[in-house]
């Protein structure tokens, strides 16, 4: 077991997870909070009065007849920011471990110089490709069946990862073509679609959120890739050189 390599990837993941948290609070979390005002205002009933949802939200918060599950939910007791920080640390380690494992399996070394490319590949695989057909959602936005969307998300990530491998790391022409096919296929097949597009969340919020999340995740992956390269070079080089 290459313990130093594992620890180096985890350290890089934790570092990227820490930085992701303030990055999320610049745009993404304020947009989520804003959208939740419309969610609490009664989700499915379709209000045309712009002032009504906010008023209803205030009312329901005061009287709390329909307490939304997220407010009464069994989340860990560290507060909204604390929970998000904790999850980002864990998630950062998770994505770092997967990236480190992929490099190790492929016999490739992540360095400070090429780390950004590993990060860009991760962003493309985990964020950009799925978002192309399944845009990041705000709370209260209409969405298709959760399990179907999760399955599509997972399959798209796996196919895109395969596609990136064939395009970037294989020389053969057939591999390049196969890579493109793998990346495009889930979008031709199409993500699960929602029947009723009517949404209580203003479309401006949704479009702002889609862009801000992609930008934030691009930042996360660039930091993660670079940090992976740095940490592996500094802490695990002796292991890899055998």
């Amino acid at each position, binding site marked *: 077991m*290459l313990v130093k*390599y*594992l620890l180096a*990837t985890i350290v890089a993941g934790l570092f990227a997870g820490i930085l992701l948290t303030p990055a*999320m609070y610049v745009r*993404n*979390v304020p947009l*989520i909070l804003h959208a939740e005002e419309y969610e609490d205002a009664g989700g499915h009933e379709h209000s045309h009065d712009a002032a009504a949802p906010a008023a209803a939200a205030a009312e329901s918060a005061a009287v709390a007849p329909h307490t939304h*599950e997220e407010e009464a*939910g*069994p*989340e*860990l007791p560290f507060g*909204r920011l604390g*929970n*998000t920080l*904790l*999850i*980002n640390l*864990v*998630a950062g*380690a*998770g994505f*770092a*471990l*997967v*990236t*480190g*494992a992929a490099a*190790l*399996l492929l*016999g*490739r*070394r992540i*360095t400070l*110089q*090429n780390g950004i490319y590993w990060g860009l590949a991760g962003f493309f695989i*985990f*964020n950009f490709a*799925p*978002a192309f057909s*399944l*845009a*990041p*959602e705000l*709370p209260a936005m209409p*969405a298709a069946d*959760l399990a179907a969307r*999760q399955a599509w*998300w*997972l399959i798209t990530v796996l196919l895109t990862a395969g596609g990136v491998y064939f395009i970037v790391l294989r020389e053969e022409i057939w591999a390049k073509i196969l890579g493109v096919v793998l990346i495009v296929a889930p979008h031709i097949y199409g993500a699960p679609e929602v029947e009723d597009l009517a949404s209580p969340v203003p479309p401006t919020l949704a479009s702002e*959120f889609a862009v801000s999340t*992609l930008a*934030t*995740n691009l930042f996360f992956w660039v930091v993660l890739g670079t940090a992976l390269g740095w940490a592996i070079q500094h802490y695990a*080089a002796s*292991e*890899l*050189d*055998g």
Partner: protein
Amino acid sequence: MAAARTSTTISLPLASRLTTAVFSLMLGVFIIYGVGLSHSETLHDTAHDTRHSYGFPCH
């Protein structure tokens, strides 16, 4: 480019890398599943903002 420090490949044989790689991959996948996809209500509520921000299907 021949210097070991700038090499982008690992000379260690696959057999020596495999255990760590598989362990790392499984641990990472387990974590990503828990953070992003698990239907556990506690995990969902705790990870809520990160799931939305990351583009995981949520709700």
